[in-house]
């Protein structure tokens, strides 16, 4: 009999006032008992819409059935057969728009907490490695494939190809694999040790990771192919930060969210024993309304800021960040100044940020994205006192690879053009996916693209024989 409780089994979280000042994980996860109880809420309905909602097609009802029996290892192995990074997805996927968004239990009440359960099973497996069926390193099929970028799409593509026996080398520009999972998403949402362990798992399967390899500079795509790699997957992300183009953006104390978060997450500037510095601010204004803006604001709070604002030009309704992130940020004392748009950053006599001038906005007609577009209210400018401004208004793909590789085409936004069925670029044998193709999107969409590209690469190489 399924558990007919209407709502999700609650999960323990660190208290907002406490967690707002530390970098430890916010959500503490289920206990075994809670996990079994929640897994039992699945009706195992006929059409399993949840699976269709998952970009990497995790066999959700099957893993939930195992979890309901308390067989968490069995559950983990089902998840892991289609998802290379379950501990990551359980934490950062927008389940509300995907699996959980389609769950029939959500029609009357709350959907099954698939995300929390995925996380629980992955964490359980990590804590009990001896219980896992020893992953067999697949027999090599003798074909070499190169993956550029060790972020979500590259890791997924590499993992899927390695499972098929390909010899995969990932070229990573940074000193650490993980991409946005390492430099972008903060420790309190996604502990770095967990990302590290997922990557270790790939290396155990035979995936080779070469760090400090900035492709386009140290090697070109053509040189990689000349070196015996039969196909290349480009998952180089969307790393180039945008600024607004307003006065004062070069003042001391203005950061891109990328820089702010990279200093904190990748370089661990929040820990005293690490050498990378970061500004310890009093009043921080974060411009933008996405998940990255929430991450930056919550990080600033954890670094000890007295006040942190989110400045967003539309209303709460239109905010692209996950509801859960907005909710967590509000609980932690972040102030939301919605319907406000920065007009200039004010500096003091030494070139430091002294304030942010904003103009109030109202919502007009829906724009191309279907969201009501904000219109400035004339004469409503005001100055927000702030010593730090963080721009979290989006990123675009880095041009380095396409500008150094003949035959790879991009659209006017700089996104690589690919065949939607195969993820092949305009160059033979070269595939791409993730933010490099879509512009800034989500971890799971990038993983889905990596998965699709892996299947296409397999077909392409087998087709050549």
């Amino acid at each position, binding site marked *: 009999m399924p558990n007919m409780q209407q709502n999700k089994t609650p999960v323990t979280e660190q208290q907002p006032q406490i967690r707002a000042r530390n970098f430890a994980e916010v959500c503490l996860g289920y206990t075994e008992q809670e996990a079994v109880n929640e897994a039992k809420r699945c009706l195992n309905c006929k059409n399993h819409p949840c699976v269709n909602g998952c970009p990497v097609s995790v066999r959700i009802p099957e893993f939930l059935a195992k979890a309901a029996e308390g067989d968490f290892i069995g559950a983990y192995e089902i998840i892991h057969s289609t998802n290379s990074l379950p501990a990551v997805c359980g934490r950062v996927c927008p389940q509300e728009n995907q699996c959980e968004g389609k769950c029939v239990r959500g029609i009357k009440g709350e959907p099954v907490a698939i995300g929390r359960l995925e996380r629980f099973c992955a964490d359980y497996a990590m804590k009990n490695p001896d219980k896992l069926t020893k992953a067999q390193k697949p027999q090599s099929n003798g074909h070499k494939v190169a993956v550029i970028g060790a972020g979500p799409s590259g890791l997924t593509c590499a993992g899927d190809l390695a499972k098929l026996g390909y010899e995969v080398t990932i070229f990573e*520009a*940074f*000193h650490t694999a993980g991409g946005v999972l390492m*430099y972008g998403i903060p420790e309190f949402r996604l502990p770095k040790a967990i990302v590290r362990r997922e990557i270790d798992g790939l290396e155990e399967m035979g995936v080779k990771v070469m*760090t*400090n*390899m*900035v492709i386009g*500079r*140290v*090697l070109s795509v053509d040189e990689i192919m000349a070196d015996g790699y039969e196909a290349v997957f480009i998952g180089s992300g969307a*790393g*180039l*930060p945008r*600024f607004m183009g307003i006065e004062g*953006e*070069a003042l*001391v*104390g203005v*950061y*891109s969210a*990328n*820089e702010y978060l*990279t*200093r904190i997450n990748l*370089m661990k500037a929040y820990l005293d*024993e*690490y*050498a*990378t*510095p970061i*500004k310890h601010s009093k009043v921080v204004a974060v411009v933008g309304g996405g998940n990255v803006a929430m991450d930056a604001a919550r990080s600033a709070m954890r670094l000890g800021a007295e006040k942190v604002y989110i400045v967003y030009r539309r209303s709460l309704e239109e905010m692209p960040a996950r509801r859960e992130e907005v909710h967590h940020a509000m609980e932690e004392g972040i102030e939301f100044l919605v319907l406000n748009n920065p007009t200039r950053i004010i500096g003091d006599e*030494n*070139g430091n940020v002294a304030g942010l001038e904003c103009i109030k906005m109202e919502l007009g007609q829906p724009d191309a994205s279907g969201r009501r577009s904000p219109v400035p209210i004339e004469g409503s400018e005001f100055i927000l006192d702030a010593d730090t401004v963080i721009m979290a208004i989006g990123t675009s793909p*880095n041009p*380095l690879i396409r500008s150094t590789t003949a035959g790879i085409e991009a659209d006017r936004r700089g996104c690589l053009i690919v065949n939607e069925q195969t993820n092949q670029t305009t160059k033979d044998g070269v595939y791409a996916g993730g933010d490099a193709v879509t512009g800034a999107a989500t971890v799971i969409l990038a993983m889905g693209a990596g998965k699709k590209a892996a299947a296409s690469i397999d077909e392409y190489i087998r087709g050549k024989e």
Partner: protein
Amino acid sequence: MYKIMKKERLNDSTVLMEIEAPYIARKAKAGQFIIYRLDEYGERVPLTIADHDEQRGSITIIFQTIGGSTAALSMLNEGDSILDVAGPLGVATEYGDVKHVAVVGGGVGCAIAYPQAKTLFESGVEVDLIAGFRSKDIVILENEMKAVSTRFHLCTDDGTAGYHGFVTNKLKELIDGGADLDEVIAIGPVPMMKFVCKTTEPYGIKTLVSLNPIMVDGTGMCGGCRVTVDGKIKYACVDGPDFDGHKVDFDELMRRNATYKEQEKAHMCRLTGGVRNA
């Protein structure tokens, strides 16, 4: 890991290191840089590539111990390793169709002026190399620079060696003396580059500078190295590090470079117990 093949102290605060980095050695060109991270706790520090040797699979860096991370690097010895070295980063210097160039180096900037002069001199360009130092005892690469220049002009602020005065005075003398310069390349402390540009501007001589802003990743990802050039934001790591000096906002660059001055001091004190040489 990247092994230190050779270490040489050029003066009290300047160190040369040859580092094993075969991939970088194959691609490096004058004007490009690397980013190193000493160990797990280290920050990512950009340093311009002073020389490279494809045969030996090595690159050479020359740096001054001006902060915690360079001080820590200077304590390593031959045979030790650096955890991470990424490069070659940035755009290689693009020389126009030039016949006569003045290369101006200031202090440790001479380490970068040297490969520039070498590249130009070896391709048959007439090179006036002006190298400025505070004093005689910190002069570096004198013989090397002499060997790659048509005329070598050593300058010291205190007159203890060579010409008594700043590089800008020497440069102005050359120009006023009839040197028909197609281009000036200036590499050194930001104020020096600023004043070299001020010197050449009235004469309309194109002046290239190599900028050294604060960076994190060096691949265009953080935007921390943004500089204002001709009123527009440029990222020194991917658009530079070379820029048309007459269009650079040097005052802004100096302010931005001082962002972490206080924290750097505290870091140095932890590292050296309060003693600071530089």
